[in-house]
């Protein structure tokens, strides 16, 4: 029973981390209807940033959020202006190849500047949290709470603010939104930059848990894509549920079947969801064409 509890709790907590790094991806997908294949490298870049702020300036990685989130917002804005925006009115493949190219470029820039070494920040809490016979890292628990706050906060922005309304209007009908005076290109810019800023937040949360190296994004990006599609493309709370599902399925199947099959089982879950609920767990019909869920 202890083992089962440990596996489920750990699965939920790591699932929260998977969700946090996927929210930016789903937001961008929901509004711009593009897939950012450089998402993993955005994460890598932000993790290097968090590492630098923590190690070189001596701040806590959670304090690094104050620097990394705005920096990633700015970086996302620049990438949107230079790489994404020119390809938006062209065939889909243009943006696919542009973001893939950006992914390879960023990996190699990181390799040149940071070498292939693995970099870490010292643990923030020296002891694990112990509840009965269960043990887990305080950083994981904190990461999960931040994910919940982030999901709730983002939902509030989308539903209750003028910016959120403008985003939803843009998603429903870009042309009509433009006729109503909504600056659609700027909404796209803000969304892409905002999605990148969320990756920055995820990076600060992940830095005390994982090492950063030039290809760290590859370890997570596949999970992020599965989380987004599983939860429902464009659905923010869907990303949270998708992340937790993957975390728990991976944890239980790795223990009870074999660790090598952990990924296989979450892909089986993925296939089942695709067969029986093609729009994802919380996705609505046609989400791929209408974008973020209402």
């Amino acid at each position: 029973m202890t083992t089962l509890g440990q596996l489920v709790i750990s699965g939920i907590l790591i699932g929260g981390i998977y969700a946090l790094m996927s929210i930016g991806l789903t937001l961008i997908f929901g509004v711009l209807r593009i897939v950012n294949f450089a998402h993993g490298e955005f994460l890598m870049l932000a993790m290097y940033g968090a590492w630098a702020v923590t190690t070189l300036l001596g701040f806590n990685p959670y304090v690094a959020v104050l620097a990394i989130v705005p920096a990633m917002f700015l970086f996302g804005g620049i990438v949107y202006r230079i790489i994404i925006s020119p390809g938006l009115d062209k065939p889909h493949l243009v943006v696919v190849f542009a973001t893939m190219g950006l992914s390879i470029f960023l990996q190699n820039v990181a390799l040149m500047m940071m070498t292939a070494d693995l970099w870490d920040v010292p643990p923030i809490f020296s002891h694990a949290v112990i509840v009965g016979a269960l043990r887990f890292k305080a950083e994981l628990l904190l990461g999960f709470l931040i994910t919940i706050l982030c999901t709730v906060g983002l939902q509030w922005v989308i539903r209750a603010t003028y910016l959120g309304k403008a985003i939803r209007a843009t998603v429903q009908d870009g042309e009509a939104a433009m006729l109503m005076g909504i600056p659609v290109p700027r909404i796209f810019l803000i969304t892409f930059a905002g999605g990148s800023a969320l990756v920055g937040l995820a990076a600060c949360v992940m830095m005390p848990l994982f090492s950063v190296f030039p290809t760290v994004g590859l370890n997570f990006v596949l999970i992020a894509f599965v989380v987004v599609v599983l939860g429902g493309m464009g659905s923010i709370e869907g990303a949270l549920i998708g992340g937790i599902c993957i975390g728990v399925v991976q944890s239980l199947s790795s223990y009870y079947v074999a660790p090598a099959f952990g990924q296989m089982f979450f892909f089986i879950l993925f296939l089942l969801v695709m067969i029986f609920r093609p729009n994802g767990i919380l996705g609505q019909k046609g989400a791929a064409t209408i974008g973020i869920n209402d």
Partner: protein
Amino acid sequence: MRVWLRLCACLFGATAILLAGGVAKAQQPIRIGVLLPLTGPFAKNGIENWEAMQIARDMINERGGVNGRKIEFVQGDATSPNAAISETERIITKDGIKITTGSFASPLAIAVSQAAERHGVFHWETTGAAEIITRRGFKHTFQVGAPARKYGQAAVDFVIEDVAKRLKKPASDLRLALLWENRAFGKSVGDGIRAYTGIKKIKLVYDEGYDQFATDMTPIVQKLKDEKPDVLIAISFPNDAILFQRKAKELDFNVAAFIGVSAGYSSPDLRNSIGDMVNGLFVADFPPKVNPNVLKPDVRKVADEFYKRYEDKMKRPPAGHAAAGFSAVWALFTEVLPKGKTFEPDELREIALMLDLPEGSLVNGSGIKFTNFDWPDDPKDAGQNLRASIGVWQWTKSGNDQVFPPKLATHEAAMVPLPVWSKR
């Protein structure tokens, strides 16, 4: 008189042209293709190997080269098996390379040697270890490093001959667990350990493979914790080794002795990432530095120079695979190439097969004697070095100490049983 003068001028001119041609030929560098992962997930170790090989190249060139000819490297970035094949093809077909070396990791070694063999190119593998590398009937592939089974055998021998005594238990009573990453190297070593423990009548209480890109080690560590092994042998790459150790601490999973096998557990990153938690862990690997007394006197001088240059350049001592990379190419420069005339792959093959160097002839303590479809253990094996040294070293506060086998050891094993996490 004029006729004589013209004749002399012609003869002088012809001699000058011939001499110039001869000198030019003598000065032409020997070009060697180096296939290593310089980008991508294996880049960390690939770059360390590249640095070690460059030191070997500089050292031989400063000594006047090979029979007066300098060594020149042509680089290929073998970032993945597919890239390894295309990069090997590129340097062979475009640059006319007939000798290749590299390639650090087993999946890359399999790919590079396959492409090289297809073109009849001589491939001198430095550290690739999977058994299959030399079991495909290839004629021009020579694996200087130890085969995967030797890593496992070293770890198991160490458990039987050293750890069991320190734990005051018969080896057959020890609860031994085996964890392996499920790609070419990990699987190959795991297979070797399973077979060898069977021969030695030791039962494995846990034996599972995992994906090295796993992001959560909880299920693995929890299962190990439930199995309560005395000794764990783990084959991992750097990132997963770090994740495993952190998770072991989080879940308070303790063993009396932990033996990592090469790759992740020998990487200097491990100490950078987990700090003093690394102290006490054992690593079955190419020896990073052996007891100098086992080296031949001239090899000892080369070793001193290599270690000094590497530490000056990289600001840290070489890991075992980097020392093995140096050792292998140094043997190529000093034992194979000087005996060549045409440097054609068939000629180099004959020279390699004739090599009979005792242990202690290479900087990392290895000797060289290759199989040639004549090895009783496996008649399909050709080009495998039977005298490659593998041992066990231990992470300590001051660095790493060779602890096994006794012949290569510089120190005795310490911290057995390994203190529990709360006391480390």
